[in-house]
């Protein structure tokens, strides 16, 4: 069979090749440039390992590395300790407000990541709203800025996600399994420990992995609330900006080490999970049991406190958006001035955020759907696994590193994109294409392949079959996937900060600058943050209502 016959027979082959080329150019080439510049000496010509050696030996780099790893571990352990026990009780026992609890947890997973740091500083920073009161009652309270602040914000920022994953893991257990253990003589608590916990472990480990990698790659929280504490993404940002492209060698070496760290964590997760995924034979869902009254009251109170902590940032920001700000000091009376300022002086960042997110989401969903199609429906011996691997690479690239790669590649003619909206849209697209692909894959698995073959058998070409049958059937899944992608890009900070220009200032930049005490637009930042929260939660709520199965971004 000739190539032309093959392509005519299976036009998807062309699509797969095209997608492969696009991903190579946008994902792999920038990373290769980073590798190249990491190996160049200061003179820009000779090849050297000096950058790596300096990175691994100089104290400030080592400190950042140790801080990052320590923060990630402490935050993950504490988030698990806070959220897993509560999730267990809500999954296995009859407690009030089940739907509300799950909705709140879902909303918490979409919370803009850096809002937490911004709000907790407002509350407990040296000049925070509550700090003087704490000192007045004699507590030796200084400020939340520092290592403990990053951990505190990180734990409550991740708690919703952990709760949701853990709830899912415990709720999907077949209740017969534990009853079988009880019938074999195990007490209730033994059965929980011996049966439920090991079976839920894969789900719990996945949650831990997501928290861990999230903290490792997070730029906003440590930058805003870390004070003098140095972590890898923040260090990279300073390295790259201070050396300003003259010698990005150090930043490149650091970028590669960050990607290496993320890869190592991923491999570790794979290793731990290998052989631990159990197929549940039964499908009987757990029928929740009743707890004694005192326990119900205790757990419900704990749950209320839990979600209060999770949503403190939202409450604080919403509250502060109605205060009168003088410089960085909020005060009475309540006012709508901040919203007036948003509507009259500052519509541009809102529009820029929406436009960038919309463009990159549409492209990510279209490309992600095609990638998912090739992955699920075609079995090219070489192309399919290669495409899948390429798609997942952006998962491992922290936003800061991604931005550095794009700047290195697209800062010269004829492809000078730095400072334009295009480079931001490109960054958002690359970051979110793995999520869009996973979500489209999940929808495609729901549509039997023979529905498409039936279309071919009555004379539809593959393109017509995709248009008239498959795409119609996966549309609900695509809509919910697109909404989640849109929300995530709307709150993106780390790569935005490195790539934005005066004309492409987004909502996240406005909030970030206020949080850093720059620009003095504190009231405006608060109302912008409320606009961002509304932009995130309203669509999320609508999608959840329409498609209850719509998952968290994972």
């Amino acid at each position, binding site marked *: *069979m000739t190539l032309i*016959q093959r392509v*005519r*027979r*299976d036009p998807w082959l062309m699509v797969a090749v095209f997608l492969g080329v696009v991903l190579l150019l946008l994902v792999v080439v920038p990373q290769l440039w980073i590798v190249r510049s990491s190996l160049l000496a200061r003179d820009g010509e000779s090849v050297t390992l000096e950058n790596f050696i300096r990175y691994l030996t100089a104290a400030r780099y080592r400190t950042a590395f140790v801080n990052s790893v320590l923060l990630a571990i402490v935050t993950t352990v504490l988030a698990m300790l806070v959220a897993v026990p509560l999730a267990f009780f809500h999954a296995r026992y009859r407690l009030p407000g089940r739907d509300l609890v799950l909705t709140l947890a879902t909303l918490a997973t979409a919370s803009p990541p850096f809002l937490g740091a911004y709000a907790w500083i407002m509350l407990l920073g040296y000049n925070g709203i509550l700090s003087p009161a704490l000192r007045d009652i004699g507590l030796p309270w200084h400020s939340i800025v520092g290592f403990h602040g990053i951990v505190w914000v990180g734990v409550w920022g991740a708690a919703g996600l952990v709760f949701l994953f853990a709830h899912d893991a415990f709720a999907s257990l077949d209740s017969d399994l534990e009853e079988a253990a009880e019938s074999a003589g195990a007490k209730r608590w033994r059965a929980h420990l011996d049966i439920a916990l090991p079976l839920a472990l894969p789900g719990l480990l996945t949650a831990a992995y997501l928290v861990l990698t999230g903290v490792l790659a997070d730029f906003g929280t440590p930058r805003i609330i870390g004070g003098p504490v140095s972590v890898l993404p923040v260090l990279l940002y300073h390295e790259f900006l201070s050396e300003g492209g003259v010698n990005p060698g150090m930043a490149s070496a650091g970028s590669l080490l960050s990607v290496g760290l993320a890869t190592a964590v991923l491999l570790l997760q794979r290793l731990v999970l290998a052989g631990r995924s159990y197929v549940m034979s039964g499908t009987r869902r757990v029928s929740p049991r009743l707890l004694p009254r005192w326990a119900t009251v205790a757990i419900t109170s704990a749950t209320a406190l839990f979600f209060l902590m999770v949503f403190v940032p939202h409450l604080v920001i919403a509250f502060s958006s109605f205060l009168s700000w003088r410089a960085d000091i909020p005060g009475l009376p309540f006012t709508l001035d901040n919203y007036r300022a948003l509507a009259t002086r500052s519509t541009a960042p809102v529009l820029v955020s929406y436009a960038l997110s919309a463009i990159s989401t549409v492209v990510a969903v279209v490309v992600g759907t095609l990638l998912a199609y090739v992955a699920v429906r075609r079995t090219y011996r070489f192309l399919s696994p290669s495409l899948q691997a390429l798609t997942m690479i952006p998962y491992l690239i922290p936003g800061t590193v991604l931005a550095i790669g794009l700047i290195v590649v697209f800062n010269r003619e004829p492809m000078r994109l730095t400072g334009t909206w295009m480079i931001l849209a490109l960054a958002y697209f690359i970051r979110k294409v793995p999520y869009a692909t996973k979500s489209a894959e999940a929808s495609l698995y729901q549509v*039997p392949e*023979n*529905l498409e*073959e*039936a*279309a*071919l*058998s*009555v*004379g*539809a*070409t*593959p393109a*017509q079959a995709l248009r*008239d*049958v498959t795409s*119609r*059937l996966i549309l609900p899944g695509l809509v919910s996937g697109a909404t989640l992608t849109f929300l995530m890009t709307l709150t993106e900070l780390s790569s935005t900060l490195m790539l934005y220009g005066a004309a492409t200032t987004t909502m996240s930049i406005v909030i970030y600058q206020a949080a850093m005490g720059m620009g003095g637009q504190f009231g405006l930042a608060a109302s912008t943050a409320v606009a961002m929260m509304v932009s995130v939660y309203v669509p999320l709520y609508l999608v959840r209502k329409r498609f209850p199965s719509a998952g968290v971004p994972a």
Partner: protein
Amino acid sequence: MSRGPVAVRVCGIRKDFGGEPALADVSLEFSAGGFNTLLGPSGCGKTTLLRSIAGFVTPEAGRIFIGGEDVTHHPPWTRRIGFVFQSYALWPHMSVFDNIAYGLRLRKIEKGEVEHRVRAILETVGLTSLHERSPGALSGGQQQRVALARALVLEPDVLLLDEPLANLDARLRVEMRQEIRRLQKELQITTIFVTHDQEEALELSDQVAVMSRGRVEQVGSPEDVYANPATPEIAALLGGARFLVGMVSDEGDLIVDGARLPLGLARDLAGRRVRVAVSPRRLVVMAD
């Protein structure tokens, strides 16, 4: 559109899915306007052969001819086939009418003609009042009729049926089987029918091809295959035969567990171990 019944021929088809060959050098002829059955246990390659004829599967070697034309490398959508899937594969987002009309609309047939042809075929398959319904609201038997109508409305050269009765209950299965045969006779369309049910194969077919492990073991009329099975496996598959294992004596008797059955077997088998297939229809009981 129809150009009268056409023959289908496959020669030397080979297909591998990883290890075991799914089809190993299969050659077969399906007569024009005939009802041809591919019969065999699951995994014997019959569905792969059908899907190769449809074009869903590309064989590694061999040729496929429909009406004398070599279609081996033609994509499915140019092959003028009708395919009925075991699960019916009706499009859940389209009404019954739209399911059937879809292929006609792709061919840019004008609206009145589409309407006319869909109504005609619905009448042929015995569904007239249900065209507004969505497929999910139909019974299994009704979905089956819609799937047939969707395939037949295009007046294809060849109708391919992949275990179309497997998902129906026993009573409906017998009813639909007669219905399919009636339609096929009425429309004079070359039909290839895949099944693992020997009763269906024997009742419906003009020609039965028995397959096993990716090969065609025997081809012939149902009567012929039933009466003269080429292998013990075919005898077991078709006639529900049981086996007697024993030695042949010098007199041509069969010795089973010390018991002597005077079957009058050929003398040149004397002294050898044999298996004798006993089919329910042809068991002869002899008095002592």
